[in-house]
């Protein structure tokens, strides 16, 4: 795991960068103001009163008026800075940007890479791949309650509101893995609704995109075959889709390429065979309240399913 995975203080793109400039401006200004005011307060209470302590009111009035004036000036400066930054951030974004639809669900992210020809669309979940140095337009919708899309290293947050369509422009300048997480309270598992953004060189990205367009590979070994049968005839298919098989459920993450993802259950656990086994047998232990039920698979059914899922690259 890289040291910085989710922080507004380590911008990796133009949007986050200009916001962090504003942050540091505000931080230093406010620190100075704070020190000055508290300093004045300390002097006021500590100064020795032997000269009678009777300061004439007029000079007080003057200093209070002056202080107020300075305050107003500083505030106008900050106001200007904030509005300017706002415009700068809003002006980023370009016509030939990449468009990604992200739909919020309790408690996972449904990701679709738009394409005019439906067969070229790519569906995945809880993980975005974006090309470095290219503006990306994230279009946000929600299927249930209000969520908020937030990848602090790339940009501020934007809410996903049922019945509304919002959008946000991102760009990553340095390749890397940036973690994001739902920032609007959305119920039981608000805490475990994370997503990963993988920024990579654009040819890597294209390669990934092409790979994601492929249907699931056919099972190679009899065990994988058995796993596929369980997936299709068993409980999985009621909610999950595996393109190229008869599993076509729409209410849970698309599993066609699950083996390529780094986490399961929206960032709750790393995507390893062990965790996956635990998740399938008893999801409610790992993520209480998640919509995935305990499937009651028998031990060999479970092994077969795991074997099959590992082939979904």
């Amino acid at each position: 795991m890289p040291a910085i995975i989710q922080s507004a203080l380590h911008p990796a793109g133009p949007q986050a960068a200009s916001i962090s400039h504003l942050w540091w401006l505000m931080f230093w200004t406010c620190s100075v103001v704070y020190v000055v005011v508290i300093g004045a307060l300390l002097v006021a209470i500590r100064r020795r009163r032997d000269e009678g302590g009777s300061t004439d009111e007029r000079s007080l009035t003057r200093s209070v008026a002056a202080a107020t004036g300075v305050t107003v000036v500083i505030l106008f400066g900050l106001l200007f800075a904030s509005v300017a930054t706002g415009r700068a951030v809003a002006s980023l974004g370009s016509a030939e940007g990449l468009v990604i639809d992200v739909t919020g669900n309790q408690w996972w992210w449904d990701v679709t890479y738009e394409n005019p020809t439906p067969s070229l669309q790519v569906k995945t979940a809880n993980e975005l791949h974006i090309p470095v140095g290219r503006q990306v337009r994230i279009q946000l919708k929600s299927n249930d309650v209000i969520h908020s899309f937030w990848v602090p290293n790339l940009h501020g947050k934007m809410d996903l509101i049922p019945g509304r369509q919002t959008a946000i422009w991102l760009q990553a300048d340095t390749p890397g893995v940036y973690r994001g997480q739902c920032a609007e309270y959305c119920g039981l598992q608000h805490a475990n609704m994370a997503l990963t953004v993988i920024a990579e060189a654009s040819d890597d990205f294209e390669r990934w995109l092409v790979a994601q367009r492929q249907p699931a590979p056919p099972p190679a070994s009899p065990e994988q075959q058995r796993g596929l049968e369980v997936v299709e005839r068993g409980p999985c298919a009621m909610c999950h889709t595996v393109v190229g098989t008869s599993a076509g459920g729409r209410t849970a993450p698309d599993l066609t390429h699950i083996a390529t993802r780094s986490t399961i259950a929206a960032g709750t656990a790393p995507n390893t065979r062990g965790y996956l086994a635990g998740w399938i047998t008893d999801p409610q232990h790992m993520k209480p309240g998640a919509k995935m039920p305990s499937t009651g698979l028998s031990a060999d059914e479970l092994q077969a399913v795991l074997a099959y899922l590992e082939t979904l690259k």
Partner: protein
Amino acid sequence: MTEGIADDPRLEPSALAREARELANTWSEPRGFVGWFSCVDHKTVGVRFIVTAFGFFILAGLLAAAMRLQLARPDNTLIGPDLYNQIFTMHGTTMMFLFAVPVVLGFGIYFVPLMIGSRAIAFPRLLAFAYWMFLFSGIFLYVMFFLNIGPDRGWFSYVPLAGPEYGIGKRADVWAQLVSFTETSGLAVSVCLIVTIFKLRAPGMSLNRIPLFVWAELVTAFMVACSMPSIMVASGTLILDRLVGTHFYNHAEGGDALLWQHLFWFFAHPEVYIIFLPAQGIVSMIIATFTGRPVFGYIALVLSLVATAFIGFGVWVHHMFTTGLPQFGTSFFTAASIMIVVPSGVQIFCWIATLWSGRVRFATPLLYALGFFVVFIMGGLTGVMLAAVPLDAQVHDTFFVVAHFHYVLIGGSLFPLLGGIHYWFPKMTGRMLSERMGKTAFWLLLIGFNATFFPQHILGLMGMPRRVYTYPVEMQWGALNLLSSAGALTMFVALSIYLANVAISLRRGAVAADNPWGASTLEWATSSPPPPYNFVPAPTVGGRDPLWETRADLPVVVGLAADTREVLVTRLMDAEPDHRKEFPEPTVWPFLTAVAVGGLYIGSIFTPWAVVWGAVPCTIALIGWAWPRKGNRPRSLERQIAHRHRTAAEHA
């Protein structure tokens, strides 16, 4: 001012003593079980408000401790998500609706009539009703919590999460009805305060001589009156959506989730100022007293109170910067939210000027006032940051915001309130609080507070969102969270010491004089604790600081009947005596009315018909309330009519 006659026989010490005895027995509260429920004295009710509110403060504090315990280390499994959600909702709801607002209003209820030299508060029965509603609301909420029906949708109950489809069970309804309860109470109190301050001031206390605390309470009462209707509408429509299937918040049928946020924040942002304007009033009182000089810039302070109130209604959208509203609109609200700092700044400068030019006495109340500066100013500055749309987009709904509003609310409201208790405890109980324990508690609280909440700024910037019941270890938030939890522990210890101080001093505290701090306002002119009739003879006022001016040439009021609860009503602007009003006796009806209304509210969680058959007992109770015990002497009525004819004749 109407010229007084010198050496009136009614001012002979013996006569005054006699009058005092008679007044005492006229204004005394009934004893016994029923009497306890029928009390209408603003001092008793005020104390009840304050004590009850602090009771809920303790409960909410314990909930906060539970949360800090859960977050102390990553991947903690001490508290599950369901309970955790209930806990943070209960904490927020309790602190906002059951502690902060009632306690500041409670101080107003107790001290406003004393500070303006009145015998009573206007509409004492309404006040009693307000208290019972408040008490029932809290009991109701916590009973529900222990029955596992505690609200779990956040104190803001955003739809659709709190709506009929996703707000499962009755928890969200409990929240909505709790709001109805407390708002009813708050609105009733604000009526009492507004009318008292407008019409019951001592002769001579013209508008420009009202103590700053009273001004703060007046502005607050108006803010309550203008903002709480908004949340009444919000919670009402939420209940309707959940109970009878209306579509206010259903986007598929023309409703809109953002309508809720507008209605809620149009109340909830002014709420913040409702909570902290009275606290600023307390700071003004304390600073004036412990610098031995009138607060510098009275007019400026009053104007900035009013300005804060006005701007406070124009900033609510800064809670919705991440909902994708058009940019132009947001920058307007940015401007408003940044400019609201100016009045607060003016106040702070005026106070510093006061300290600069006065002779400072470092008693515990002043320490709390200074703590207010240290903490609140930082909260204000982070507030400026949050007003900036781009920055808000990063830190909104993170622990940065949690830190910010705890600096504002604890710094801006709790510190002054604790100071205010130290300041007024002698007046309320007749005993002094221990300075030593007071100072220990203060310093512990200051340290603990900063240890708890300062790290949360950093956590927010490091990407930790609010309202998460756990966080993975690899996020590296563990250390700061642990520090924060340790700070919470320190705060717990500090507040326990404070509480112990109160408990001990109640019995063994040094007996307090009438005016132990040498303060300037009228509440210190009467005995500690004040008698049920507050003053005899009723005072008049010649300036802003009555007790610091030579009172010898100030006339006093005589001629108010001592055998009935007569109160002098004065004119709005110049407070010239206008007429006498006979105030109602204590009665149990407000209590019964509160029971009936409470029944209606609770019933309507389960069935809309509760509104229909619940209305019957309410009506009965209100009739019982309105029905006069005794017709007052027809003679006086004739006198009255005769008087009118006489005046009419004079005019002709």
